[in-house]
């Protein structure tokens, strides 16, 4: 606390304080609006943050509308929408936004003026000094601090948005996983039925003397193995449904469609995915904003050589076992001995560091986008191959086998074995379809952009 003595300066300080406080008010939605915008633009689904019982109730109604109790979760889009308003981890994360906004507002406010009262005794004299005090440092640093806090707030919002997008992608993938394993389970049940029929028939034949014990045991063994496979498939289906339910923030008391959505008729065969990623990815935007902050710090340091503003990146500290801590620091020095050359050099180096970090983030983003694109293309080709060639061929083989059975060219056991093989092929086809949709969601995340979302919405049933 530095005592303020001059009345005129006190008045101007109060005026400045009022002005600055005016630019940083707590917003009615805690800064959630822009976040919702970003996410809605990229996923087509809007997240909600329920801070009041009314909001919570409203969101519950929304969830109930999308998914009546025990109802059918019709599309991946619905699942994403539910997760974005109902996932408790997201709700917890949204609270960070409130904390960041509070910091921002705090930074833009002068500390409350304080009164000090001193009464000193000197011999017989009593000296009473009254003064109005204000945090000088804070006052001086306030513009810089507000700016930095504003950017921090932006970054928190971007980080949160990234997290929301990741949750959306995870939900989408979990939805397809749960759907596919449920669909696969249905086929595994068919396989089990075929094995059961063969086993029953073989047992009857062994009993009548038409079959050796060896042949009967072979069918029995196969039946037993199929049962274990069915049990495993059932467990996997349950696990996958639980994973989805957890992301949706609810119990798995819902049903899923019987089959995966149809593959899109076609997907773009070439796209400027790297440009899209650079333009749309939030991590790149965050790195860019950080660099912008460093640029301003550098400019300030160069101009004054007295005010040393070390921004986010510069103060990134990390102790082992703890999350890295970022923040800023403002120092003001009196230039008696140091005229600031070293400080400028340091700020420049830090700026360059930030620039390189942005380049690295962009490089990563490009690579991820390319890879995700390639993987989706491959998954699509594979799924189409199953749908257009392999499954129809398997089906034709089954038809031909039935004709052969009609002509007494093969036995009913061959027919049942064929039915099992057909089911296995269909299962592989289901997995290929699932992998496409998972790769599709991964690509959306890697591009972080609306282009992928539009593509998806055009093809979703």
């Amino acid at each position, binding site marked *: 606390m530095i005592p303020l003595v001059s009345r005129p300066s006190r008045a101007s300080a109060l005026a400045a304080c009022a002005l600055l406080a005016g630019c940083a008010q707590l917003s009615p939605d805690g800064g959630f609006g822009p976040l919702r915008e970003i996410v809605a633009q990229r996923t087509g689904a809007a997240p909600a943050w329920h801070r009041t019982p009314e909001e919570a109730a409203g969101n519950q109604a929304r969830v109930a509308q999308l998914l009546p109790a025990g109802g059918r979760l019709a599309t991946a889009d619905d699942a994403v929408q539910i997760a974005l308003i109902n996932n408790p981890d997201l709700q917890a994360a949204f609270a960070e936004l409130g904390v960041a906004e509070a910091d921002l507002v705090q930074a833009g406010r002068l500390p409350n003026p304080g009164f000090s009262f001193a009464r000193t005794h000197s011999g017989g004299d009593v000296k009473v000094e009254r003064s109005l005090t204000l945090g000088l440092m804070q006052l001086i640093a306030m513009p810089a601090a507000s700016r930095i806090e504003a950017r921090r707030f932006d970054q928190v919002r971007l980080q949160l948005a990234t997290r929301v997008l990741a949750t959306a992608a995870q939900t989408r993938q979990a939805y397809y996983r749960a759907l596919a394993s449920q669909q696969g389970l249905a086929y595994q049940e068919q396989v089990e039925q*075929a094995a059961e029929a063969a086993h029953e028939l073989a047992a009857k034949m062994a009993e009548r003397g*038409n079959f050796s014990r060896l*042949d009967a045991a072979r069918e029995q063994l196969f039946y037993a193995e199929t049962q274990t496979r069915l049990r495993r498939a059932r467990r996997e289906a349950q696990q996958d449904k639980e994973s989805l339910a957890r992301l949706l923030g609810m119990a798995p008391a819902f049903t899923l469609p019987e089959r995966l959505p149809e593959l899109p008729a076609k997907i773009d065969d070439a796209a400027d995915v790297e440009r899209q990623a650079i333009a749309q990815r939030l991590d790149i935007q965050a790195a860019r904003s950080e660099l912008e902050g460093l640029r301003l710090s550098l400019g300030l340091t160069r101009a004054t050589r007295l005010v040393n503003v070390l921004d986010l990146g510069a103060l990134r500290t990390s102790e082992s076992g703890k999350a890295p801590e970022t923040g800023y620091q403002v120092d003001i020095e009196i230039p008696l001995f140091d005229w600031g050359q070293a400080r400028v050099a340091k700020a420049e180096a830090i700026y360059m560091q930030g620039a390189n970090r942005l380049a690295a983030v962009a490089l990563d983003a490009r690579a991820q986008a390319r890879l995700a694109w390639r993987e989706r293309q491959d998954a699509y080709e594979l799924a189409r191959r199953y749908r257009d060639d392999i499954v129809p061929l398997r089906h034709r083989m089954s038809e031909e086998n039935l*004709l*052969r059975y009609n002509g*007494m*060219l093969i036995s*009913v056991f061959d027919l049942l074995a064929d039915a099992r093989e057909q089911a296995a092929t269909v299962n592989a086809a289901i997995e290929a379809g699932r992998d496409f949709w998972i790769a599709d969601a991964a690509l959306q995340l890697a591009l972080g952009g609306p282009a992928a979302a539009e593509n998806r919405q055009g093809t979703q049933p």
Partner: protein
Amino acid sequence: MNPPSISRRAFLQGSALAVTASAASRAGAAGLPEAPLQQSPLTQPPLSPANGRPYQPVVTLNGWTLPWRMKNGVKEFHLVAEPVVREIAPGMKANLWGYNGQSPGPTIEVVEGDRVRIFVTNKLPEATSVHWHGQRLPNGMDGVAGLTQPGIPPGQTFVYEFTARRAGTFMYHPHADEMVQMAMGMMGFWVTHPRDPKFMRVDRDFVFLMNAYDIEPGAAVPKVNTMLDFNLWTWNSRAFPGIDPLVVRQNDRVRIRIGNLTMTNHPIHLHGHEFNVTGTDGGWVPPAARWPEVAADIAVGQMRAIEFDATEEGDWALHCHKAHHTMNAMGHGVPTMIGVDQSAVAGKIARLIPDYMAMGDKGGAMGDMEMPLPENTLPMMGGRGPYGAIEMGGMFSTVKVRRNLARDDYRDPGWYRAPAGSVAREWRGEAPAAHAAPGGHHEHP
């Protein structure tokens, strides 16, 4: 039964002109006798000799006889070895190799003492040769590629010339890559008639070769590497119900000459009559050495001529007595379902395989059941008679003995109309007391 044979002289000459540059080749091509082409798989009427020594012609079951020309006292024939499409039975065609449009090739008929010249044009993708099975001839005419002659390369014509020294029953087939070429259907019949037409004269003289193919159901080309597990047992590359009946006038003297070019023996059994084996490819059996039979086993590579007087009217079965040889393609690994009640599992299976139908629990008979089969596949057993399904395939036909047929009438007279009271019938009298069969446990629940 009209022979729709077409001349292909024009075609041959045209192709020779187009393909061959040398004038000598052109002259050679022009000098070739006609190579007629047969397109029908049905039995053609006997070909009476228009010239040369007289003889009583044979009838080739589901086949035909090759016309010839006389040139300076020599009988000239022209065989063209080529890929053919043979109808094994209605509903199934096989891509085979044969001669002059059919497999087997046309029957060659000559008379003892005839000078014979046979031109053989090879239109196969590999070299071939013709071995004249059973003939006495100069060694260089025996047709064994590599041993007595070079193979006939694709596109070339070779000429064989010899005198038919011995009357009897013979055949011809390649002796070059013969495993493949015979598995593909290359073979034909050869009859040398006795100089004296009255010698062992018969009224009707049928000939056929027995052959076997392994054609995957739904396919058309035989598997040439099959050793024994053939699935189509055929006479002249036809399987019942594609084999024509042997139509006979009552009391005709009938000869049936059968050659075996399969990889196993076939006990050929005639119903209603006993017969004598009167000839082999080695010659005629002296009357004192003949013995009566109703089934003659014909070993691999052998020929038998059997003779009988067709005294008994009716439709008499003539078939191989190996039961599997009177079946068409069938699954040899199919388990026996007799006595196994499938009703409980049939529903389960049908849920997986909607068109499934339980079969075989009462035996193998398929009766009137008609179910879709793989394309180009004959049912295991087929053909219907006047009393229902005949339940036969493969090497099966009938000898139809009728009174009042014309001498050379080989037209199918239809089913025999048995006189009243002469057909096995249901016993309508008192039923015998029922006895449980000892150890019988095949009763159905």
